[in-house]
């Protein structure tokens, strides 16, 4: 069984190699190869899952040592995999949702002549993400981490002929590099502290290291997580990443990439448990981001960007939960999985809408689409109900638990975090209802463009609707299944640990509160977008709306705080280099040259001059020798 773990990574990697190196002769069947290999990886995952269920809950973890990577003195890095319940959860999510997205892309990318390459990148993305969650040490995890960064860069910038896509890809890459630096520093700190970076020794000995060091490691890990998971302050790349093809957005937002940060923090739980200051930073980032993303999501008219804000916000929930410690780890992962279902469904639905609307993304030019694309409407609608936490659907079970856990943190902190999570739930209900109403309800608002092409909304082909239907099932039932008999908690508890905390509010009170804010959010949105017709051009809006449209000024902030000082620094350095360094260098060169020209004249070709030089030299030699003796 252990040997299968390596195959999980190897199969999609093989796909990437085949599709990227295979050349044109694979153009016609590349997408099938990619999809089949992704599905094979899922099948292997399923076999391993069944095998794992067959064993007792304390010896479920599998370990597979592939080879020694860097054995140098006291520095050992191995390529070794570890498959425990946490990794298993991720493997199934990544390969399962990933495969569905592959299937969907067959239809979505049908008219793209670089489809083979696209599927190669998708396979690469899966392989990197699987490596990330299966590594048994931080160094190998880092390899997967960078692989994810590379694959996301390639996919976001897939339509590289569009300058905006190329820029967005670069932006995602650069912002991610900032986080990557955090991870590399964290790994170095681990090595100096523990003498190793394998999970087992580091996490087992975590509480024996000084708290200061653990806090430092924790903060660096958080920085890394912020980069990959698009958390404040490294959130700015996520919205722009919508420039990639929509299946890519679904993949990034649901199954891969943004979940990596949550995985990292949950996996490193032992470190955070022993470093309360780092944990406080994690919950702060989570709480701020969940509100930040939600507010941005309210103001966007671009359907994908509204969903991107939503992702940011939902990941914020997960980070918040992960920062709560053992109270929250299980729920962070549970929400991650349910979110994987409904967010993938929502993105695929959005893609389906765009597909039928000539790639229009502005929701103000949609309206009344429920009649034209019923399957998309129903699956999207189920995803919508799941994300806002409609009772009984997936999001209800997982989000509710996070809000409860936030209150259970206790003290003022618990009230603040719980309040923020509740407020977030209200805003989520508001902006998702807004998306729903603007897209599928009301009057039709699309018109012919300047070329006279009027969109003819239609249902998407089966290869696209099938994944949406499957995901809709997940959106509806996953949460309930997980909560049945606390199945998910029991499943994950041996790895992450779990405690209940002491909530000042009863579970019923929290659920009741959530329902109230849910109704308020939906009601507000309906009052604004359901009762009145939606204007085709956006009204000016309040100051907050305008700020939210500009992503709460994130780019302006980055420009003023980072880009401009950086530019001034660069200009200053260039100035110093030109004037000072080059001045010294050129000055030296010029004076050497000048001296050379003058000395050269001594060499006049006359033997008599040379003889005088020798005579003088000898005289000096003798004088100097005598002088040395004299002094």
């Amino acid at each position: 069984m252990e040997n299968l773990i390596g195959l999980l990574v190897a199969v999609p990697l093989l796909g990437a190699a085949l599709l990227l190196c295979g050349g044109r002769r694979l153009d016609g069947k590349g997408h099938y190869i990619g999809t089949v290999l992704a599905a094979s990886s899922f099948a292997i995952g399923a076999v391993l899952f069944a095998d794992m269920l067959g064993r007792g809950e304390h010896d479920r973890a599998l370990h597979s040592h592939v080879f020694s990577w860097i054995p140098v003195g006291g520095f050992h890095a191995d390529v070794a995999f570890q498959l425990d319940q946490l990794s298993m959860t991720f493997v199934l999510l990544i390969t399962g949702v990933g495969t569905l997205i592959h299937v969907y892309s067959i239809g979505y990318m049908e008219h793209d002549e670089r489809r083979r390459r696209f599927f190669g990148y998708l396979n690469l993305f899966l392989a990197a993400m699987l490596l990330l969650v299966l590594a048994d040490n931080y160094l190998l995890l880092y390899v997967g981490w960078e692989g994810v960064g590379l694959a996301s860069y390639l996919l976001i910038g897939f339509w590289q002929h569009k300058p905006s896509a190329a820029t967005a890809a670069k932006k995602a890459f650069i912002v991610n590099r900032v986080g990557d630096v955090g991870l590399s520093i964290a790994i170095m700190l681990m090595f100096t502290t523990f003498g190793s970076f394998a999970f087992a020794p580091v996490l087992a000995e975590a509480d024996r290291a000084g708290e200061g060091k653990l806090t430092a490691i924790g903060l660096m890990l958080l920085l890394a997580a912020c980069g990959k998971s698009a958390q404040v302050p490294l959130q700015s790349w996520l919205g722009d990443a919508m420039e990639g093809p929509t299946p890519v957005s679904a993949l990034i937002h649901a199954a891969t990439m943004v979940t990596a940060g949550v995985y990292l923090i949950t996996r490193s739980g032992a470190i955070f448990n022993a470093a309360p200051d780092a944990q406080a930073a994690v919950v702060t980032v989570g709480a701020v981001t969940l509100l930040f993303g939600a507010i941005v999501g309210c103001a966007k008219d671009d359907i994908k960007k509204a969903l991107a804000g939503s992702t940011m916000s939902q990941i914020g929930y997960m980070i918040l939960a992960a920062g709560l410690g053992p109270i929250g780890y299980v729920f962070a992962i549970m929400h991650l999985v349910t979110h994987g279902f409904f967010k993938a469904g929502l993105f695929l639905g959005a893609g389906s809408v765009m597909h039928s609307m000539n790639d229009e993304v502005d929701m103000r030019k949609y309206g009344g689409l429920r009649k034209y694309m019923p399957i998309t409407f129903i699956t999207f609608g189920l995803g919508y109900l799941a994300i806002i936490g409609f009772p009984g659907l997936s999001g209800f079970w997982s989000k509710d638990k996070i809000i409860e856990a936030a209150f259970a943190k206790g003290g003022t902190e618990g009230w603040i975090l719980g309040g923020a999570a509740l407020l977030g739930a209200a805003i989520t209900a508001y902006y998702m209802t807004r998306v729903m109403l603007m897209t599928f309800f009301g009057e039709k608002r699309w018109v012919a463009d300047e070329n006279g092409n009027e969109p003819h909304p239609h249902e998407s082909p089966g290869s696209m609707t099938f994944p949406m239907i499957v995901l809709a099932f997940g959106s509806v039932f996953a949460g309930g299944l997980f909560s049945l008999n606390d199945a998910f908690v029991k499943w994950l508890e041996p790895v992450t640990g779990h405690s209940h905390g002491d909530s000042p509010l009863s579970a019923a009170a929290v659920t009741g509160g959530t329902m109230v804010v849910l109704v308020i959010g939906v009601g507000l949105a309906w009052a604004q977008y359901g009762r009145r017709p939606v204007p085709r051009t956006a009204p000016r809006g309040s100051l907050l709306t305008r700020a939210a449209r500009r992503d709460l000024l994130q780019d302006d902030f980055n420009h003023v705080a980072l880009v401009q000082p950086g530019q001034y620094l660069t200009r200053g350095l260039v100035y110093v280099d030109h004037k000072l360094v080059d001045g010294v260098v050129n000055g030296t060169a010029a004076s050497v040259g000048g001296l050379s020209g003058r000395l050269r004249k001594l060499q006049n070709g006359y033997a008599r001059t040379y003889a005088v030089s020798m005579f003088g030299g000898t005289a000096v030699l003798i004088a100097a020798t005598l002088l040395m003796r004299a002094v």
Partner: protein
Amino acid sequence: MTHAAPVHSLWTTAAAAPDKIPAPHIEYGQLSPTLIVLGGAILGVLVEAFLPRRQRYGAQLFVSVLTLAAAFAAVVGLAAGDYGTGKAHVAAMGAIAVDGPALFLQGTILLVALVAVFTFAERRLDPVAHGNQVDSFAAQAAAVPGGEAEKAAVKAGFTTTEVFPLVLFAVGGMLVFPSANDLLTLFVALEVFSLPLYVLCALARRHRMLSQEAAVKYFLLGAFSSAFLLFGIALLYGYAGTVGYAGIADVVDGQVRNVTPALAGTMGNDALLLIGGAMVLMGLLFKIGAVPFHMWTPDVYQGAPTPVTGFMAAATKVAAFGALLRLLYVVLPGLRWDWRPVMWGVAIVTMLGGAIVAVTQTDVKRLLAYSSIAHAGFILAGVIATTPDGISSVLFYLAAYSFVTLGAFAVVTLVRDAGGEATHLSKWAGLGRRSPLVAAVFAVFLLAFAGIPLTSGFAGKFAVFKAAADGGAGALVVVGVISSAIAAFFYIRVIVLMFFSEPRTDGPSVAVPSVLTSSAIAIGVAVTLVLGVAPQYFLDLAGQAGVFVR
């Protein structure tokens, strides 16, 4: 180690009864490298005298190569017979030392000479004149340049095959020079290798006036410096009562064994020692080409036939540094607090002077001449270390440097235009585009001169500077590194010129050499890279050889 009787003491022999003259004891086996070479040279003269003109070239080449190879085999045999270390001693009644440095340098000189003979014998480069393949040397040296006699000689297809015995004579002197163990042997050896070189310098086939001018200058200045050397020897004799190295060293150390009555007034007079020592030093520094005794170098290097320049630049330097090392380490170690500061000064001005003046050179041969001056300064830094590491680093540097130099000058012979070798740097522009291989090989040599890692130049420079730093000459190393930086400029400039400039339309062509020059260049490249990539074996060899016998 027995201290031999002062056989060269000038007055004792006259006083002794004739029947009491002891027969000198000569260790012929240990002197065999020198004897073989001189014997080969005489054989070469006989070839010149008795063989018909047509057959001389082949016979001379055969004799030279065989002689040098046999002599090298003799050196290897002596080294294998432990004469370099355990059995090192003073041979030939105190006149010749057979020890590690001597054998190492003799081996180096012989290999260098062997490779140089290849370039001497090259006959493919110059265009065929009247149906005769010709080499770099004048058809008839005695003919007036441009005169009727010269034209006749060229037409008749004469060649100066005397260069081969001349080289062998020079090599014979060079072999003795670093192993000379008394001052008179030193002087004789100096003259034995200098006189053939003066003649060789005058033998260029093209630019004969320039060549002859160079030879006359070299001869005049060489004679001038010899006079200083000889006067210095006289003063040292007056100081010590002997010309033997060990005897002088004993007097310097205050262990006078027997005061010679006739010299009672002068013996032990430090003024004689210091002045005489400085003058002998000057004679050696002239051969090395140290500033301010260097001024002959560019003119002679430029005027001499290029194969001769390569031989001279490589072998003379090896021999002269060997003699300098022995003088400073065997004769004058007790005096090092006097000579070290002076040599510091000489090394500094030599390094800086060579590097700075080279910056504005426009002729590739003159450039290499100034480069050799700068390198002499670097080697002096190792000499000044006065440690065993200093000796071995200098030995290694000399071996590394001489092959780079030979190779570089051999490349210079290839780049030609209608007037012969195209030595003006402007003509080398864009050479890398037209003859990538030749330009690349030259670039390797330039990088080795500049001391870039993975070439022998780096290993040698590193060894020398490390020895100097360990020997307490840190400031010298700083100056050395600065000079290296300046020197790197003009080496790299030539590379830039060759590879990154547009070729000139009237640029030179690269002649296709015969196997002789090709193998000389190939050996140069091979030695440069092997000593650069894996220097340790040779550093160890030099380390083992780094002990002088006294």
